[in-house]
């Protein structure tokens, strides 16, 4: 159990007592936090007393009335801000001075609670504040420990894994309950949706396996002389059934062997991702063109498609983990949003560069340039 200290600064004894009573047995818990949080209420009748208690006790939350006998609430707020204390300040005000409260909020108060408040309102506010404070502190702590990115990754991952399981579970339950009587078509529809979700999960898991291989963090190790054109061909063959289904033609425009020192698995992951995206985000009857070129000091891989393209704003987010562009055009296309971030990690290992040219509704070209002598 954790304990947050709440300081009430108000000259009305009724408010102080009320707050104490309302929060006495109140607990806040949060699904992913191991423990719940309880509250101790401290009281001050004036701003001066308040400041003294703040310095001594370091409360987590302050409920602050503005109209006080001596110094005003906003001055207490200023003090807390000046000292850079990690305290959430909430103004309690009567409706009449709402304007002032709004101003205080701009000056750094977290929120305000209009007075008089019901126990329910107070608890609700405290619950929100507590959650946010908890998250904020956890974020700071993890930032310090360098764990935040990992945590974000895991929390999005758990979302991505849970969503299809929830969907499938939901359908199984509906079928089990014979929700649609003997309307077989309705059940068939559910089966199709479940298969789609399973497919999505499978591709996510495959991507994750790729990712763990790369994330083991080592620089490229199994360098061997590989024929890039050959790998592109393998990748195209793998994608063929899918491209036929979507009526998209894939052309390998480079015929000659192009050799390079690389890990063949990694080059295959690059092509698989680019070509599968080029097919997936294409239109019916569209095409995909693959080029490989050997330059003096680099090998250039290029995959172009005649697909839906993307806006500049969408382009900017492409390579982040789990980013999927959500719009009308991509609505019914499943994917994990990991493919390109994996690709980027690999290209980085080779000190290569990725260029994306894209025009909405015209198509997209990914160009990857890998230097040939500067590899690790």
């Amino acid at each position, binding site marked *: 159990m954790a304990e947050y200290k709440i300081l009430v600064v108000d000259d009305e004894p009724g408010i102080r007592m009320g707050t104490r009573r309302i929060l006495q047995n109140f607990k806040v818990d949060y699904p992913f936090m191991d423990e719940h949080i309880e509250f101790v209420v401290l009281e001050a009748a004036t701003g001066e007393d308040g400041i003294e208690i703040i310095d001594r006790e370091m409360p987590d939350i302050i409920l602050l009335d503005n109209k006080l006998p001596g110094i005003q609430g906003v001055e207490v707020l200023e003090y807390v801000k000046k000292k850079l204390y990690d305290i959430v300040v909430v103004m309690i005000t009567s409706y009449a001075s709402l304007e002032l409260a709004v101003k205080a909020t701009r000056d750094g108060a977290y929120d305000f609670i209009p007075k008089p408040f019901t126990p329910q309102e107070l608890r609700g506010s405290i619950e929100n504040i507590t959650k*946010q404070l908890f998250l904020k502190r956890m974020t700071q702590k993890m930032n310090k420990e360098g764990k935040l990115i990992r945590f974000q990754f895991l*929390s999005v991952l758990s*979302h991505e894994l849970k969503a299809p399981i929830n969907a499938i579970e939901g359908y199984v339950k509906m079928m089990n309950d014979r929700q649609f009587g003997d309307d077989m078509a309705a059940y068939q529809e559910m089966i199709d949706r479940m298969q789609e*979700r399973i497919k999505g999960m499978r591709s996510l898991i495959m991507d994750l396996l790729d990712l763990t291989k790369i994330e083991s963090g080592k620089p490229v190790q199994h360098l061997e002389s590989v024929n890039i054109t050959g790998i592109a061909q393998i990748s195209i063959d793998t994608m063929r059934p899918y491209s036929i289904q979507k009526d998209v033609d894939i052309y390998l425009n480079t015929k000659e062997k192009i050799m390079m020192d690389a890990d063949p698995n990694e080059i295959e992951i690059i092509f698989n991702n680019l070509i599968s995206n080029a097919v997936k985000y294409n239109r019916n009857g569209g095409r995909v063109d693959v080029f490989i070129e050997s330059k003096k000091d680099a090998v250039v891989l290029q995959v172009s498609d005649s697909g839906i393209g993307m806006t500049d704003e969408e382009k900017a987010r492409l390579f982040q983990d789990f980013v999927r562009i959500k719009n009308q055009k991509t609505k019914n296309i499943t994917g994990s949003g990991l493919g390109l971030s994996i690709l980027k990690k690999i290209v980085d290992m080779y000190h290569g560069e990725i260029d994306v040219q894209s025009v909405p509704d015209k198509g997209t070209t990914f160009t990857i340039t890998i230097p040939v002598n500067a590899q690790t």
Partner: protein
Amino acid sequence: MKKTVLIVDDDMDYLFQMKIKVEQFGFETITADGQKEAEMIIETTRPDLAILDLMMENDDSGFILAYKIKRKYPDVPIIIATAVTAETGMTFDINSDENKQWIKADLFLDKGIRADQLQKEINKLLKI
């Protein structure tokens, strides 16, 4: 007259399943598959309650939508449903001044909530 519940989620399966559930509780439903569509709906229609997913077009679509619904219809109760509550805090900048003033949900719910509990929460918010 039956009350109308607006359900917004970009996961079409969740949307469909939620719709069936809520209809079984005896409500009318309107569904939208994202923030944009939902915004169009509220232009012309006042639901009696709204159930919103949090992460749709953007990580905070649910919040924005909640804000817009409340601005237009202050009395409409709003439930924000999330799959992992961790989503809410971590991907979303809780400290920015802009954000903290407008998180206007009446209730946060876990998406995995049981149907009977969901029904109880909805009834409570609708005071029935």
